């Protein structure tokens, strides 16, 4: 038993941050932070055999840059000490690495670090000179180093510890009681019994589903079949859990499959008319893709983990976007980390295995000024500080992407008060795969009866038990810590390296990732390819013994892939895994008996008819009634909006400064720098470029030749998200989201005739219940969004290739004053566009390149200030608020022209106008190379400077090209000024000229988001 701690001699950044946070609570004379390692002997004699004491210095510290403390420090009576430990069973990656490091010195070979004779734990020790209570310390630590769901924070006075050190006996802390005999519970097929279990376990089954289960298991034939196991008239615990996971909203998308009865109030919005829709998914999303099948580049859509397209002669490209909202609400870091690692596994599990080449991330969050402070009686008790969520999810995506060696090339942050309900954490990934693998088409999975079920990667634990059903419920005050998971980037990186090697050798018949529902979902789904599966859970390696049968089946423990491997390949497959440091196990075989059988050794646990498991679900019936545009009532705002004087050149400046620093406009660059956006060496257009490296590009562009594609071929990826329009009309919101995503890829040089879209819906619960009085309206909003989306896809001829929905983004809980509060996110749709850049040399940056270039606006100016950043920042009584609906056909025409213009090298820069309107786009165009611009805006109206309802671009054109340019864009362009070398922005407006320094404007723009991050 050893305890050591290490402190850096150089890096005190965390110490400083903690000290600063503690100072808010009281005076701090000094604060020291040390990393602690606890080492326990799992097998007696291991420490001696390893000569552990002599290894500690060598393994755990760097004599050049650190100091080490063996055992406990010499406690000082006047100081306060804190220990932060992981709770038992929580993933501790540093401990895993520490164990692996110690194993290097072991004379004996150990199959896995989990089997090693020494058990390591990592944590923190803090020494504080100052007077603080446990409560104050917890408050500070829960904002930074610790999470009550994951950690134990121990606080003690030095004076107490000197007398009696209660921390000395730490060995029992992680000790878990031995597992008693595992039992398989059998439940009677009786409504009350099943309802009760449903409630107690949070299975999220609805009444009708429970009746469906009872009917199925009570049928004469099923009863006869089940008699031999003694299950006649019963359902096993494992079966019920398996059905609940498989049938969860998260896995089966029941709302999108439902029968919907839609009606609407009359009003000034596109009428859809009353109608009945059977499956929104089939009627809109899938239909759009079917209607556009003749585009010729669809390889595999909707049926796999990711959509696959043919944008290159040598390789196929695949794309997937996921959300990880509920986990990120509880543990922002772990939630975002497992989100990004999970979507990477979706790519890895696509076809016969694809390699992730880029990540994207979009966060929708609240922020300090839009959320009641900790002291406020309105503060919802369970919800975390928006700043804690922001920092956590940002660091999670940073760690996941960076450590996996996958560049983060595109993304966004969007702030609104209602995202306090649940942060929306969208994580996307793009992958590439060879067209064929050992002569087989790489997108086709095949499983024959007799093929083996192999699972590789991390071990099973209780982490992530009930993730799928949990995310299918609103966030409540009661949550179980089991649903929290922490990702392990390195275990996953090894798994990824191994999988691609195994794929290239032709050993993978089929593959899928273990996400929601664990092996119950992955094997349950794969079984459909052969017609059945027999799964033996006793062969799945466990993190610890204390797991029930059902927990093993549905645990969502991360970093695991499931494979179908032919018997003749399995030895080589397992051998390669061992050599690459990956644990792989054969768990059974695929069959063709039409049954999903689960056993533990010889004990049968489940016998589920495969057809019933996947098709037995009855179709939900949902009513939808659109009440027309609703007035947006913000959940919370600390300070009222500022007033603005009558429009003038000077007031433009006042407004611009405020808008540029608005968190929805301000530069993401300071935070994007935390992400590696160019590992793998293929990022042609990075998120920010130019001399200053602060010029925003509209989309990420990736070279494909680096990944084995054709020379000079590239793809662009971008996103569109406009939830602020949802309160008016989600039809409009959806069209705008598509339009924005398309605008962004087109601006960088992508071909608008070779595009694929990904849709991600994050909705407030649209199902009727007492706590949801406007359910019909929310459902109608979903219908209208689908309709808008469908029309937009058809208009741009851009098919959907993948998508996902998350339908329960609400919070119901108590405020500090004891009142029940419900917060719902606005209906939100993220559209990701993936498009081909046919000539990789012809990409266009989003910022001015050269002084002397002429500046033009492309597209039709609009007047509405509805949901604009200007109206978000200012009270603006005279604003034209009814939003214009887009003319998509006209937009498409402009986008094709822009693409042709880029091919003719007519544009030096191209930046789309979105949040912040025209003035923002003009200012941003200056920031990349610290160039200035002189503008004449005399012919423009005030509203046109700020409106965000159009499809417009700011472009710069060399003087030599002006006449060709004007002819090319005849009727669609408007000359507004010149790029100048002096870094100043000046404009003539309403008879006056106003000048601002680019540096001053940029300073505001750069600070806006950092302020939110640090709040």
């Amino acid at each position, binding site marked *: 038993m050893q305890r050591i701690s290490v402190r*850096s001699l*150089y*890096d005190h*950044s*965390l110490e400083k*941050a903690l000290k600063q946070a503690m100072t808010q609570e009281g005076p701090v004379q000094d604060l020291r932070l040390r990393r602690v390692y606890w080492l326990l002997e799992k097998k007696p004699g291991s420490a001696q055999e390893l000569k552990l004491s002599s290894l500690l210095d*060598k*393994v*755990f510290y*760097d*004599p*050049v*840059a*650190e100091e080490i403390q063996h055992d406990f420090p010499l406690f000082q009576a006047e100081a306060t000490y804190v220990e932060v430990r992981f709770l038992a069973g929580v993933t501790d*990656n*540093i401990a*895993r*690495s*520490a164990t*692996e*490091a110690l194993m*290097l*010195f072991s004379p004996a070979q150990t199959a896995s670090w989990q089997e090693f004779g020494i058990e390591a734990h990592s944590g923190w020790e803090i020494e504080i000179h100052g007077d603080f209570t446990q409560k104050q310390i917890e408050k500070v630590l829960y904002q930074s180093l610790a999470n009550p769901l994951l950690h134990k924070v121990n606080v003690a006075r030095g004076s107490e510890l000197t007398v009696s050190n209660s921390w000395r006996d730490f060995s029992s802390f992680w000790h878990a009681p031995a597992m008693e005999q595992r039992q398989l519970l059998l439940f009677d097929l009786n409504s009350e019994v099943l309802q009760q279990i449903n409630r107690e376990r949070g299975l999220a089954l609805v009444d009708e589903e429970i009746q469906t289960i009872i009917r199925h298991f009570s049928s004469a034939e099923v009863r006869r079949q089940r008699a031999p196991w003694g299950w006649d008239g019963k359902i096993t615990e494992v079966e019920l859990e398996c059905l609940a996971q498989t049938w969860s909203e998260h896995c089966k998308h029941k709302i999108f499959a439902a029968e919907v009865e839609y009606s609407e109030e009359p009003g000034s919005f596109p009428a859809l008319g009353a109608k009945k829709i059977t499956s929104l998914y089939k009627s809109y999303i899938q239909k759009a893709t079917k209607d556009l099948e003749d585009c010729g580049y669809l390889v595999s859509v909707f049926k796999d983990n990711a959509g696959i397209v043919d944008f290159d002669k040598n390789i196929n490209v695949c794309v997937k976007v996921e959300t990880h909202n509920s986990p990120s609400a509880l543990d922002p870091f772990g939630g975002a980390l497992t989100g990004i690692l999970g979507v990477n596994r979706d790519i890895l599990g696509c076809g016969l295995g694809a390699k992730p080449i880029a990540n994207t991330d979009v966060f929708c969050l609240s922020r300090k000024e839009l959320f009641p402070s900790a002291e406020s009686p309105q503060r919802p008790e369970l919800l975390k500080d928006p700043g804690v969520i922001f920092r956590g999810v940002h660091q999670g995506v*940073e760690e996941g992407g*960076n*450590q*996996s*060696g996958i560049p983060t090339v595109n993304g966004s942050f969007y702030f609104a008060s209602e995202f306090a309900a649940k942060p929306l954490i969208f994580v996307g990934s793009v992958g590439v795969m060879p067209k064929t693998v050992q002569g087989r088409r790489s997108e086709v999975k095949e499983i024959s009866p007799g093929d083996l079920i192999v699972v590789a990667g991390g071990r099973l634990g209780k982490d992530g038990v009930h993730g799928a059903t949990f995310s299918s419920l609103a966030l409540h005050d009661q949550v179980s810590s089991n649903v929290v998971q922490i990702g392990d*980037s*390195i275990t996953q*990186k*090894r798994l990824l*390296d191994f999988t691609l090697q195994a794929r290239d050798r032709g050993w993978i018949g089929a593959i899928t990732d273990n996400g929601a529902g664990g092996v119950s979902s992955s094997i349950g789904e794969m079984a459909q390819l052969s017609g059945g599966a027999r799964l033996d859970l006793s062969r799945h390696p466990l993190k610890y013994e204390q797991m029930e049968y059902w927990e093993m089946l549905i645990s969502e423990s991360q970093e695991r892939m499931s494979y179908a491997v032919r018997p003749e390949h399995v030895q080589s497959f397992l051998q390669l895994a061992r*050599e*690459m*440091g990956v644990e792989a196990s054969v768990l059974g075989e695929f069959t063709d008996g039409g049954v999903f059988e689960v056993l533990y050794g010889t004990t049968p646990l489940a016998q589920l008819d495969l057809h019933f498991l996947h098709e037995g679900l009855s179709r939900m019936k949902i009513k939808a009634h659109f009440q027309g545009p609703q007035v947006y009532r913000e959940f919370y705002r600390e300070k009222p909006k500022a007033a603005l004087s009558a429009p003038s050149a000077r007031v433009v400046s006042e407004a611009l400064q405020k808008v540029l620093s608005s968190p929805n406009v301000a530069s993401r660059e300071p935070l994007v*720098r*935390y*992400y*590696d*956006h*160019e*590992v*793998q*060496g*293929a*990022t*042609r257009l*990075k998120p*920010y*470029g*130019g*001399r200053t*490296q602060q010029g925003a590009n509209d989309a990420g562009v990736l*070279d494909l030749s*680096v990944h084995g594609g054709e020379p000079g071929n590239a793809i662009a990826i971008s996103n569109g998200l406009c939830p602020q329009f949802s309160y008016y009309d989600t039809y409009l919101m959806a069209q705008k989201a598509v339009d924005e995503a398309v605008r962004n890829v087109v601006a960088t040089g992508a071909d608008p005739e070779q595009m694929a879209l990904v849709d991600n819906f994050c909705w407030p619960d649209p199902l009727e219940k007492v706590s949801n009085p406007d359910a019909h309206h929310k459902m109608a909003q979903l219908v209208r969004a689908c309709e808008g989306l469908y029309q937009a896809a058809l208009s741009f001829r851009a098919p959907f290739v993948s998508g996902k929905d998350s339908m329960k983004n609400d919070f119901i809980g108590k405020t500090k004053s004891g009142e029940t509060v419900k917060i719902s996110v606005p209906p939100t749709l993220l559209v990701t566009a993936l498009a081909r850049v046919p000539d*990789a*040399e012809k990409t266009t940056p989003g910022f001015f*390149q050269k002084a002397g270039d002429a500046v033009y606006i492309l597209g039709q100016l609009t007047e509405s200030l509805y949901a604009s950043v200007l109206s978000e920042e200012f009270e603006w009584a005279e604003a034209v608020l009814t939003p214009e609906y887009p003319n998509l056909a006209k937009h498409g025409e402009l986008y094709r022209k822009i693409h042709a213009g880029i091919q003719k090298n007519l544009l030096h820069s191209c930046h789309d106008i979105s949040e912040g309107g025209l003035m923002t786009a003009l200012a941003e165009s200056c920031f990349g*190379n610290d160039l200035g611009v002189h503008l004449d805006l005399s012919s423009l109206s005030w509203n046109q400077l700020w409106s965000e309802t159009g499809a417009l671009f700011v472009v710069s054109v060399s003087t030599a090209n002006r006449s060709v340019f004007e002819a090319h864009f005849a009727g669609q362009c408007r000359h507004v000024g010149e790029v100048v070398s002096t870094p100043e922005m000046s404009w003539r407006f309403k008879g006056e000229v106003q000048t601002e320094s680019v540096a001053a404007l940029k300073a505001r723009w750069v600070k806006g988001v950092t302020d939110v991050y640090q709040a």
Partner: protein
Amino acid sequence: MSIKPKFLVLWGDGINCENETALAIEAAGGEACKVHVNELLKNPRSLQNYQAMVFPGGFSFGDHLGSGQILALKLENTLKTELQEFVKTRPVLGICNGFQTLVRLGLLPDADFQRSCALVKNEQGHFMDRWIELQRNEQSPCIWTRSLPLKFVLPIRHGEGRFVCGEESVLLRLLARQQVVLRYSEDVNGAVAQIAGVCDPSGLVFALMPHPEAAVQDWHVPFAEKAWGLEFFKSAVEFLRSEKR
């Protein structure tokens, strides 16, 4: 046509820049052989089949216990004799995490398995990805930088890239012996003397925090500037070709 020198490109355990590093070596006229750490350790003598060795960037073992620490322990345990021999005559390059590993191994700055320097967390306290101007020391014996101009840009992508020396005397010695090969034109991470890359006294073993393999094509550079990264690998290929053994 001369024979292509064989470069061992290490990968596995969280190293993640092996592919682009291999592409750069090939483009420079070398033969890149990606060898998994475990494969190399299974047969340590196989190291002598290569004329040069590259430790690419990445996050070996997640930077846990300190960047490069566990990979260094792993290599030292099994490969120490072979590495000792190798570095006497053959070029070795460490990039980013490779630099961290070489410093932990004590192969830099003096190729004697003694640790005297460290790469600690950036002064900013976090990872960053940005392009930065570097200045090359003309007097350096480094064989990896011979064909580079005096100033050029490369991307840095690290959280622990701040170079420090345990003793002031070590820094003075590195400067005096021209082992400081590259310095940042501005203070980017708090590194002592703005050091970005160092070599051993022979000039064969060299490592740097910036990523030359990510600055191979002009389009890699996010502004109008030439990419010079390929020259590192060309210099080594040139060196190996001109060597007479």
